[in-house]
């Protein structure tokens, strides 16, 4: 009987030791195998020459025209060039809002810092814009006009972290089109407009929301 018990104890000790050794061994293996996450096969190296495709910045529409509020015989609104009126008028450097004008531009919503109209528009040639140092600037070059004041945004734009874009991240495989400032910001009230969000997530079973739509009322 004693011998039996002894055999049992030896067997028990042996089994426990074996389990311990196996356990430690497997733990070490686990640690080693963790870095062994084999990624999938790579693409064959394409022997393409390093052509850099262009990055195109969308150009603004160009010299603007102003609606007169009248329609022609075809029913199309009649628009006129800036110079039509402004060639014969004295510039007023104090004008900061359309509401102070007698005719034209009254409805123009203006909210762009403490600028006056002629801070950006060129009083000597209304078909161009005016830079801070007085030099004229084509309407197609608005990006540089904005960049005069909005340095950090312009820097981010140049670094690719401001402004929407379409096309390729890899310019060796294709080009890219980038928005210009006025694609998103109206120059007269540049704050990005409020929009209604699209595509709300569908409620799932078990989900309830409070009247305010908050996770937390």
């Amino acid at each position, binding site marked *: 009987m004693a011998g039996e*018990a002894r055999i049992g104890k030896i067997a028990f000790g042996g089994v426990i030791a074996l389990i311990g050794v196996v356990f430690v061994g497997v733990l070490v*293996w686990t640690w080693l195998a963790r870095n062994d996450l084999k990624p999938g096969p790579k693409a064959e190296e394409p022997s393409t020459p390093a052509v850099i495709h262009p990055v195109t910045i969308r150009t603004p529409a160009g010299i603007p025209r102003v609606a007169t509020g009248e329609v022609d015989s075809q029913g199309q609104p009649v628009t006129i060039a800036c110079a039509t009126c402004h060639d014969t008028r004295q510039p007023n450097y104090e004008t900061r809002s359309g509401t102070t004008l007698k005719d034209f531009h009254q409805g123009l919503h203006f909210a762009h810092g403490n600028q006056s109209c002629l801070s950006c528009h060129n009083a000597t040639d209304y078909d161009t814009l005016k830079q801070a140092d007085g030099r004229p600037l084509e309407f197609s070059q608005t990006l540089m006009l904005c960049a005069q004041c909005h340095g950090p945004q312009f820097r981010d734009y140049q670094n690719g972290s401001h402004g929407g874009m379409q096309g390729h991240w890899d310019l060796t495989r294709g080009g890219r089109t980038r928005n210009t400032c006025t694609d998103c910001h109206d120059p007269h009230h540049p704050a990005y407009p409020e929009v209604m969000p699209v595509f709300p997530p569908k409620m799932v079973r078990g989900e309830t929301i409070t009247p305010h739509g908050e996770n937390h009322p």
Partner: protein
Amino acid sequence: MNVNDTTANPAEPEPHDARFHATSYMKFLRLAFRLATEGSWIFYLWMIVLTCIALVGTHAWAVQVRDGMAVTAMTDHVSWGLYIANFTFIVGLAAGGVMMVIPAYIYHDRDMHDTVIIGELLAIASIVMCLLFVVVDLGRPDRFWHIMPFVGKFHWPVSMLTWDVIVLNGYLLLNLHICGYLLYKRFLGEAPDRKWYIPFVFLSIAWAISIHTVTAFLYSGLGGRPFWNTALLAPRFLTSAFVAGPAFIIVVLQIIRRITKTKTKIGEGSIRTLAGIMRITILINLLMLVSEIFTSFYTGGAHGVSAKYLYFGHHGHHALMPWIWTSAVFMIIAAVLLLRPRIHEHLWTLDIACVLAFIAIWIEKGMGLIIPGFIPSTLHEWVEYLPSATEWKITAGIWAGGLMVYTLLLKIAIPVFAGTVSSRKP
């Protein structure tokens, strides 16, 4: 060849040749089949009822596979539900069966030796249920072979789930071997050879601990789920398993006693030992629960959000409150009842305590642990979960299936073990 002649001298266990085993093992299987299919009307009624429930569950599962798991109440927010909750609990039940084995083999408790097989068979039936619960939780059960070692792609040892596959199936095989070997030897009327089962018994003790530890590691290893990400999870799992397992066996022993109509008080000592075990483990379990709750609530922050939701709800979300408070109250009542002196002589008190503890732990490990791990979601969205009809049907079906397996196993094992049937004539 004549079987009776070769086994005529039982005192000296002579090595049998393969031909002997080929015939006598077939006989053993035939006897097992007969024992399993014969019984009283109560037995037939019981099996028919279980079959019907299993049928409902099977059908519900087939529909779930066809129409997708959208028929469950699970969502991308609460992506595990009643199935995994039951899986977790039943792994504990399987591990709890070992509480019969430890006193029997380590402490040479003679009373336990006669009933130890009841615990081991419970482990077998439980593991079958566990595997079924995992299968019904799969979105693509047709791809089960992907998780088989060598055949599929077994992400071992990195994935804890592969560990679980190994330990669960290993535990199943171990217990099948031990039970099968002991029963077959009893059937032959021979003393079992120690070297063929004692090492396996000791292995199964360690293994029982491992199945529940690994199952706890499934959850506690996930850093993104603060509610589970606690080192106490594995010890808590084990302790609660050592409450639920003995509770189940105590009740089963009494049912067996009633059905077999033995006046010899079968399992008297076992019940006493098991009640003693439960007394301690339920208190340890409560202590661990209190520790968890204290840490969650006193610290607050992200770690406490799920616990707070679980016990007190969150701004109109309180689907789990009835569950967890039921569990807490049942657990405390059971713990108090178990303190009654000489509880094994007050069977009604003991039975009530067992049933309450069993239900309490089923909730605590399922609806009270798996579900709140997902609420709020990792992006802090509040999506609640209560099981759908399909999930209840499938769950009931698997429990019925597991009880069928357990009933049949006991039906075979008890007469063989009691020596009322054997290969030799009396």
